[in-house]
């Protein structure tokens, strides 16, 4: 009897935990990384380092972001259920007692907190755009970054983590420069990932926009072919796992943050995001739980 998608997913989760690749925490979708998983992620990062070496300016941002960016980019209109908002206690002694009492009882203590200036970064490139207000140099810019991101979507599916890392390259420039860069990465991402002997496919995709307005956003995104995903069919052909995405934002961020091209118009932007945990999971699923048993070609490509 063949297993369903959910059964295969659960068997994979059990295997990852039993082979001490991932470490279960108290929260669904939040995992510790044990040594083999950590090693593979480091090697993946090094592989991407070799791929993009010398092309881009490397930058780093912490995993929190000005909450103002959520307002100005329309994130709450589009993805309200995913946003992780940071709140802290700012009250006096009397309120503190009530807070402690509530915490001890195990209840929801949210009402005692005040919203802070930050939210958890929802996509690794978000902190970059607000820093680029002004005019780009001729030919635009290319950045390389890695960051922790948070998406509030608790699930037992090990491939749908709530907190994970994205390695991104971000291109800013004219509409033509950005479109050509995306086009190039469609091929290049497939080449890089198929060298890891993963059965990858390139799919047209949409972001999980919320609600009725979201249906239209998705239709528009799809009609304009703005998002592509490199996918691997881990548990079923119908619901493949996206391990990397290539996203053309057109002038969305340029417009919101006042980023201009050398021609004076709003800059276009695009990013490629490698989902490091998901690529690692696809590797363990495809090649087995023991790193020593992985095919020689994969071990060579990753310098394992």
């Amino acid at each position, binding site marked *: 009897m063949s297993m369903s998608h959910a059964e295969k997913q659960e068997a994979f989760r059990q295997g990852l935990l039993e082979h001490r690749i991932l470490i279960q925490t108290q929260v669904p979708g939040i995992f510790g990384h044990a040594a083999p998983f950590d090693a593979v992620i480091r090697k993946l990062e090094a592989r991407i380092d070799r791929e993009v070496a010398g092309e881009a300016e490397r930058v780093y941002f912490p995993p929190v972001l000005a909450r103002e960016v959520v307002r100005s980019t329309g994130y709450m209109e*589009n993805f309200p259920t995913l946003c992780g908002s940071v709140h802290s206690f700012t009250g006096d002694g009397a309120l503190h007692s009530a807070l402690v009492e509530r915490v001890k009882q195990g209840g929801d203590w949210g009402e005692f907190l005040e919203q802070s200036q930050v939210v958890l970064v929802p996509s690794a490139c978000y902190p970059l755009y607000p820093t680029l207000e002004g005019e780009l140099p001729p030919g635009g810019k290319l950045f390389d970054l890695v960051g922790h991101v948070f998406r509030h979507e608790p699930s037992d599916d090990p491939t749908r983590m709530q907190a994970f890392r994205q390695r991104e390259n971000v291109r800013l420039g004219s509409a033509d420069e950005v479109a050509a860069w995306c086009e190039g990465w469609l091929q290049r991402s497939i080449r890089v990932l198929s060298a890891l002997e993963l059965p990858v496919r390139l799919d047209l995709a949409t972001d999980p926009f919320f609600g009725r*307005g979201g*249906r*239209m*956003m998705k239709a*528009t995104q799809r*009609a304009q072919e703005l998002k592509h995903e490199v996918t691997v069919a881990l548990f079923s052909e119908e619901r493949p796992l996206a391990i990397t995405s290539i996203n053309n934002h057109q002038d969305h961020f340029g417009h919101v943050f006042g980023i201009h091209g050398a021609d004076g118009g709003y800059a276009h932007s695009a990013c490629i995001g490698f989902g490091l945990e998901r690529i690692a999971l696809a590797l363990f699923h495809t090649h087995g739980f023991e790193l020593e048993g992985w095919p020689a070609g994969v071990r060579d490509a990753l310098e394992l």
Partner: protein
Amino acid sequence: MDASEINQKVRQVIAEHAQLPADLPPLEDQTNLYEVGMASRASVNMMLALESVFEIEFPDSMLNRAVFESIAAISEAVEELLG
């Protein structure tokens, strides 16, 4: 509601919600709104405003770019939904 009244109301919703550049020449019925600068998010707000003004609900099958790309296309969709 007759066709010219629908057309006028559609134009009013576009003026309020499509966030088009201020220096555009007057819109023709066939002008492609996306080509003259309507962003996706603005088109969603326009869609929601059309539903409220005309007291209609666009079915999922109509929530696509082609339906909202011009005054003519929008008016045709609204007429269809008003029956």
